[in-house]
């Protein structure tokens, strides 16, 4: 027993020492030159999802927000960039199969850059989250197709995390113009799952029309969910017709259907859930 404890102490000792030396301290904190170098590294390695100016893209959160969900300190950011965030599209450094991994130095430069562009705005989005929740589950009909924290429909994307992973602007744009960009598919090597919410309309051999959201598709088959949440697995060569459209099944919500204020409340609700 004593032996195993001492072995563990040695293991722990060696596990901690290098980590402290390499990962704990940002050697460039506040260094404007490092921030500039970090800006270029950011453009090469991060901008695909987080946008050129770190304001967030269609895929990744706005990193200019001072409050971040997965990392607060520089050391935590270093861990997130190095190891990725399991269960999300955020990959570990150098593992997306495309491009070269960053050195520790480059990661610190990127963190220094992100710190330099952070905006110390209020963490609370403008809007009434409580009212937003009522709308989401009620009059605005969002929950017919979208699930938040286990409640709601299945046809559209699950939205529990969306307030954290997308910018406010991206969410508003997705409500006003749902077809402008369907859930973006990443380039294949970084793509988590093929689902892009294309709308599929088919006529089967016996003349039945089915319209739904693509769950998956390949050259020869398609799996779709119709508006009553039935899943259909279909072989393309057995169909009378097959049509795929980038027009979303979600109706566009213009200002008549949903006022700016009500939409702001819904966004506030999603933000409050996403930040949990």
């Amino acid at each position, binding site marked *: 027993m004593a032996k195993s404890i001492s072995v563990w102490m040695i293991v722990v000792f060696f596990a901690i020492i290098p980590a402290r030396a390499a990962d704990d301290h940002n050697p460039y904190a506040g260094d404007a030159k490092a921030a500039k170098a970090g*800006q270029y590294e950011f453009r090469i390695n991060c901008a695909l999802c987080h946008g050129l100016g770190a304001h967030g893209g269609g895929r990744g959160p706005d990193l200019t927000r001072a409050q971040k969900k997965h990392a607060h300190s520089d050391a935590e950011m270093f861990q997130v960039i190095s190891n990725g965030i399991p269960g999300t599209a955020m990959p570990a450094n150098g593992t997306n199969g*495309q491009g070269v991994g*960053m050195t520790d130095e480059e990661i610190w430069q990127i963190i220094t850059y992100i710190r330099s562009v952070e905006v110390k705005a209020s963490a609370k989005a403008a809007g009434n989250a409580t009212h937003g929740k009522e709308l989401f589950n009620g009059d605005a009909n969002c929950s017919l197709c979208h699930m938040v924290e286990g409640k709601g429909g299945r046809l559209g994307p699950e939205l529990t995390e969306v307030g954290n992973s997308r910018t406010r602007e991206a969410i508003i744009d997705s409500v006003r113009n749902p077809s402008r960009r369907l859930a973006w598919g990443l*380039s*294949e090597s970084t793509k988590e799952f093929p689902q892009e919410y294309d709308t599929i309309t088919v006529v089967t051999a016996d003349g039945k029309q089915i319209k739904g959201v693509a769950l998956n598709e*390949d050259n*020869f088959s398609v799996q779709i969910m119709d508006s009553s949440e039935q899943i259909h697995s279909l072989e393309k060569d057995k169909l009378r017709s097959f049509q795929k459209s980038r027009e979303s099944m979600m109706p566009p919500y213009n200002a008549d259907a949903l006022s700016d204020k009500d939409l702001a409340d819904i966004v506030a609700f999603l933000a409050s859930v996403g930040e949990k």
Partner: protein
Amino acid sequence: MRAQGGSTATQPSGKPEQPRKSGASAPRPDANETKTAFSPRVAPGLKPNDIGMSQRGAEAPLFHEFLRLSVLRLAVSAVILVSCGVFSSPLRAQVTFERLLNAGKEPQNWLTYSGDYSGRRFSTLDQINTKNAHTVVAKWVYQTGATGKLETTPLVVDGILYATAQDDRAFALDARTGRPIWMYQHQLPGDIRPCCGHVNRGLAILGDKVFLGTLDAHVIALDSKTGNVVWDVVAADYQKGYSFTVAPLAVKDLVVLGVSGGEYGVRGFIDGYDAATGERKWRFYTVPGPGEPGHETWEGDSWKVGGAPAWNTGTYDAVTNQIFWPTGNPAPSNRGEGRAGDNLYSNTLLALNAQTGKMNWYFQFTKHDEHDWDATEIPVMIDVEKPDSGGKQLIAQANRNGFFYVIDRANGKLISANPYGKTTWSDTKDAYGRPVANKAASPTLEGHTVCPGALGTTNFMAPAFDQQTALFYVTARDQCDIFSTAPQPYEAGHAYYGSAYFPSEEAEPFRGFLKAIDPQTGEIKWKFEHTSPTWSGVLATAGGLVFTGDAEGNFIALDAAAGKPLWHFQMGGAVYAAPIAFAVDGKEYVAIAAGSAVYAFGLP
């Protein structure tokens, strides 16, 4: 034995520092899963799990396991003897240069990366054909145990299939059953610098050896019967970004291969090694040094880190004793500032004397490239009978920059260049007919859209040329990227791009095709649109079929004349490899790697 720099002369390392052979002593990723108590008794190159042995408790009698293994090994040996000696071809221990030259005469074998020296990836086997393709079934699957992208093209010689997997694994399988005969894994250091996955595209074979280029820039000869290391030499310093992913090409008594590292500011080269000893016989630097022709096409010292890697397999013309080897992007890949000039011999087709490595002629596809458009696509040798000229020996290449080039292989003169996908970078051609880049195509700080994107209209995926239809089949992609400058200083061993690029919404969703191009006219005779772009290569066969894979895991047979899919099989993993055809016992097989496995298909 690591060389001190990219230019250091290579020395054969008679005794590797550590045992590199897999099996009993070499570490493997799955070593913990193997009962080490059994390992010393395992035949060299085999471990218990590989030959179908289940995990057992440590109390199992060792002699019993030993007996079991010996019996199985005998069985495997018998299979080899049977497949070599009785059913297929006469027993031939050696793959001679003569056999490589005449690869077309033994269609049961697949002797080089592209099948033969021409690069056509065409098989004269026709047992599987347009009439029976719909009946094709899976014959065996071999799980490599590797993860990531499997880009390997197998070789098949007299009933044995040789292939590679990620992290420089190499293995030999019974081509009839998929059962492993030997396995090897090179011991890689932890700080290798591959740009695009821990990939390898295959082996070359000559004599009784197979040849592997590794991610830490070694060139290794393995005994083709055992997987034992015969020689292992270091070509360059991997810590400066040099690596090999290419399938080498064996020519006469040499092993020829080109280096990777265009994303690290390497100085590219193509090497020729003595197949018997590993001694380097020649090196052609793809970026000329001071005093050499072409050096003036580089600004200042930019040539020292000029890139121009040579990471895809070339072709060989025995008549003129030339190898045709294509090169990749200048470095930094997406920023031309600091390297003013044409940047020879980046993005160039080189015609080199096979014995000396001396250049006979060159043709540069994309001058002063700023979009990462490596011209490393396979240069396919095609012969065209023209009534007026009495025939012409040509090279056809579907280039990453979106143009399909046809070149006279006698002198490198351009015959034609036609777009075969969505291109916006060139509106004009020069006096020689070469597409010229628009000024506006250069990356800017704000970023702007150029087509094709950095991944190119095609990429490493091998094309095929069908001698019967006279069509050139190539995997193509329509995708545009936003190119935005992001200057980086050169630092040895660090990424050196000089720009950021990401998919532009303008071309969403990206589109992927298999296209059939008539090389005589550049006309696209048919195209098959995939659900999404694929990284699979193409095989054409005399059965009137074209085989390819898709990003969703299907292996597909299409009618070569019309592009109609006739058969498919869902393999459960994306395809990054190219298919081959071979025969054992007089029966045709088609094989391809997908996911982390190698699959073989045949008639029921």
